[in-house]
């Protein structure tokens, strides 16, 4: 169980990025964090990963307080961050140096197979497309089999088709080992495709505004009425989180953004 207990972060320049965020993420759950710019989503992810230390509260994984990167927590960043001097297979196996060579090779080969890049094992990262590079980053993060995988806007730099493809791919990979996923995104549809639960945050300082359960059956049909219903709920929550909700003549609250998908 991943627990965030009143986690807050104030930077040395006095900016309060995160304030009193508390939540519990069950093993195998997919939590998607969504919110406007500056609401502390990435700060929260960095605190969970141990890359940054919270100035208030604590992050606890199975009873262990996280103060530095932990072997059971992997992270995928917005950009692939592949090491340009290592070939694709060596990038994927980067976190397995402690493993015997044969085991490492087998795990890397399997991970590359799972992301459909077996034939790219010997190429340099510069020879990959954006989508391929991000798939290598996913393979690299999953190969040590972390209990928790954090994804910080992992598909935001990709085109719509590649993004949808990788979302499906991520769910396939997740189904293998069912790690806990905490995903930060700006894309409402992406959030609904992936999430078991959507956490809407509000900015300055970043706080949890609302949590929306997302229990649609998988695979999720983006054209379905149920999908659309959840989308409207999330959009309305986002607008309210930014104080942009409008009240119609008949007293109904509507999203001011007119159904925009990106925040």
């Amino acid at each position: 169980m991943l627990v965030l207990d009143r986690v807050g972060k104030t930077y040395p320049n006095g900016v309060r990025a995160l304030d009193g965020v508390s939540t519990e993420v069950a093993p195998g759950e997919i939590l998607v964090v969504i919110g406007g710019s500056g609401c502390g989503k990435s700060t929260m992810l960095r605190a969970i990963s141990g890359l940054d230390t919270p100035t208030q509260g604590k992050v606890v994984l199975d009873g262990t307080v996280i103060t530095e990167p932990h072997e059971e927590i992997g992270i995928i960043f917005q950009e692939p961050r592949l090491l340009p001097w290592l070939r694709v297979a060596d990038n994927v196996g980067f976190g397995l140096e402690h493993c015997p060579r044969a085991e490492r090779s087998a795990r890397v080969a399997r991970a590359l197979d799972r992301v459909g890049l077996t034939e790219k094992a010997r190429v340099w990262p510069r020879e990959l497309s954006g989508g391929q590079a991000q798939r290598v980053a996913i393979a690299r993060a999953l190969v040590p089999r972390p209990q928790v995988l954090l994804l910080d806007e992992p598909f935001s730099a990709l085109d719509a088709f590649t993004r949808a493809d990788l979302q499906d791919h991520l769910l396939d990979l997740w189904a293998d080992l069912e790690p806990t996923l905490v995903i930060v995104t700006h894309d409402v549809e992406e959030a609904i495709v992936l999430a078991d639960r959507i956490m809407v945050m509000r900015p300055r300082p970043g706080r949890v505004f609302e949590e929306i359960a997302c229990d649609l059956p998988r695979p999720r049909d983006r054209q379905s009425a149920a999908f659309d219903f959840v989308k409207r709920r999330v959009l309305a929550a986002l607008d309210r989180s930014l104080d942009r909700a409008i009240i119609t003549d008949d007293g109904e609250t509507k999203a001011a953004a007119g159904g925009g998908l990106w925040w």
Partner: protein
Amino acid sequence: MSLVSMTATVEQAGTERGASKARLARFARPALGLLLPVALALFWEIAVRMGLSNGRLVPPPSVIWNTFVDLAATGELQQHALATIWRVAWGFVFGVLAGTVLGAVAGYSALTYRLLDPTLQGLRAVPSIAWVPLFILWFGIFEASKIILIAVGVFFPVYLGVMGAVLSVDRKIVEVGRVFRLSGLAMVRRILLPAVMPAYVISLRAGLGLGWMFVLAAEFLGASTGLGFLLIDGQQLGKPAQIVAAIVAFAILGKTTDWLIVLVATPFLRWEDVATRR
């Protein structure tokens, strides 16, 4: 012949043409670099032979070649070249060692940078010749002072290159190392060293270039061997062919040693995403 086999034959012929083209390009590229000096040499040779110049102060290539052959036949050329190479080699080793260590420490530690860098930047501005009297006083007129002078020349580009490279290592890449919980030593070996390698190679090449310049300054002052001595000797005895021969020897040695660095470094830099491969 079937259409499939005809297509295969055409494809094979195309592949062979491509391979022979690549082979040709491999030899043609270095040959292209020789084009300008050879053309200039030919032009000058023809100009002297046609009587457009007496070639006394700027001897034609044939005279320089004869001087080379004469010097090589007596063993003088080898003796002087080896003495110079020996000095540059040791100066390079010491300069690179000091530049790498201090550059890495200054790049890594802000405190060391603040302590060290202003002084080193001040010393960098001192002309090489200014060190000579002091080094002769401190280390005598023999090899030590010369090697130290060359090491000083090599040191600064290497120090600057390494420090700048360490300072500019991408924080995001370092975070990848942190996520995988690399120890300090593993972080240096697996992240920092490969990340600084391209800039390091450039600084080594710049350092070596300065090493060849400083060896001349060193050999102008009290040396009885070395290509620098050959230059001075040529000037004092009025032998311009010997001077030009020594200059050509410097150029050949400088280019060869630079090429050696590139040759050794190339396997480590194959990953680089560069706009053009020369």
